[in-house]
């Protein structure tokens, strides 16, 4: 495995330009900036309507110099397939095609196009940035909104249903690389993209993005909250490489270590105001059960974490 990137070895070349329209403290802006550094200049982006469209610029403004195709909501992966077809016709095999969709554009509206593209084995990287609601249109609930979060289209006690586990759905297609990442761990994201770039076929990234406006917290806590989500075990950083699952970075350190109580994370955001103590306990129990499962899986198959421990 290649050596880990540090803040000093990160490329200085900026592919996202300032003056973009993201909210102050936007987690997507951090993840996008770092991801484009990893993808490099030889990349074509495919973007459906999402916060990213707003970030990149409302016409006639564009915040990145990379070629970018804006497509309709449901057709992100289909649009990327079209771009790949055009590149193939031109005999170009070196350019990376990266599709970037929000959680709604991935888990709800765009899932059939994505599922189709994964099944066909298209050679592209799909990024789902998960800010856990339709933030761009005014915080409506999506499939990946977590249990108990208040949005403008949920009851005042918060969403009743659980969060949809999109990475597992995509991994069930049997594609070569599925990874989760967080905007609060940009170097982990960078390394994972670098690794994905060396592979071919469909690759999927699920990036957890703190959203100050939609979650209800002060912009300065954006990075801290993303970190708390990982430290509490609510969001896990892992990768599934050719069917082999392993926890990475900060999440791997939680195995055998101490997790932060999920209450710390929930009470910092106004969207979880409707949660009663009982429901918080229930969420904590679900997380504990999930991690017990991880620890058992690790124990049963020790090498799953790999010999390259940090």
């Amino acid at each position: 495995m290649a050596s880990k990137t540090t803040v000093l070895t990160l490329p200085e070349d900026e592919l996202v330009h300032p003056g973009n329209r993201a909210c102050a403290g936007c987690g997507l802006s951090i993840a996008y900036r770092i991801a484009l550094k990893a993808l490099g200049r030889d990349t074509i982006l495919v973007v459906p309507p999402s916060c990213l469209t707003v970030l990149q610029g409302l016409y006639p403004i564009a915040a990145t110099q990379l070629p970018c195709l804006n497509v309709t909501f449901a057709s992100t992966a289909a649009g990327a397939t079209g771009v790949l077809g055009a590149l193939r016709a031109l005999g170009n095999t070196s350019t990376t095609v990266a599709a970037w969709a929000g959680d709604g554009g991935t888990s709800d509206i765009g899932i059939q196009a994505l599922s189709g593209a994964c099944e066909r084995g298209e050679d592209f990287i799909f990024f789902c940035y998960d800010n856990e609601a339709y933030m761009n249109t005014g915080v409506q609930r999506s499939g990946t909104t977590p249990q108990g979060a208040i949005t403008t289209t949920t009851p005042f006690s918060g969403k009743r249903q659980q969060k949809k586990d999109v990475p597992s759905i995509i991994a069930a297609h049997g594609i070569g690389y599925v990874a989760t990442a967080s905007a609060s761990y940009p170097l982990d994201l960078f390394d994972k993209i670098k690794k994905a770039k060396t592979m071919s076929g469909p690759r999927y990234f699920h990036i957890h993005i703190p959203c100050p406006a939609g979650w209800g917290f002060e912009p300065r806590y954006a990075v801290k909250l993303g970190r708390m989500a990982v430290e509490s075990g609510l969001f896990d950083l892992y990768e599934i490489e050719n069917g082999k699952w392993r926890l990475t970075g900060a999440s791997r350190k939680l195995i055998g270590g101490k997790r932060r109580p999920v209450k710390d994370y929930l009470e910092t955001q106004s969207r979880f105001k409707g949660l009663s103590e009982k429901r918080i306990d229930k969420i904590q129990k679900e997380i504990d059960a999930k991690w017990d499962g991880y620890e058992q899986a690790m124990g049963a198959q020790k090498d799953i974490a790999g010999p390259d421990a940090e």
Partner: protein
Amino acid sequence: MKPRGIRELDAGPVITNPGNSILIKTGSWRSFMPVSLKENCINCLFCWLYCPDMAVKVNDGKMDGFDYDYCKGCGICALECPGKKGKKAIVMQEEDK
């Protein structure tokens, strides 16, 4: 950036000069500004890494102040700054003070 009328826009929704967002000075959004205190800076570059607006200037591997034209004043840099001996190298100050 001067707003363009419908007749002056390019035909079709195509942006022919990408990267032109630098003409939009988002610094005007700010109500708190970060101020760098050089004496406490250890050049860890966390501010540069986490800045969502590319507003931290880095010169020769060293943190070199802020680009106030674009900084939106979110305060992530000030919160993430480890500082030296518990003293932060970035503090947030109210604008026009």
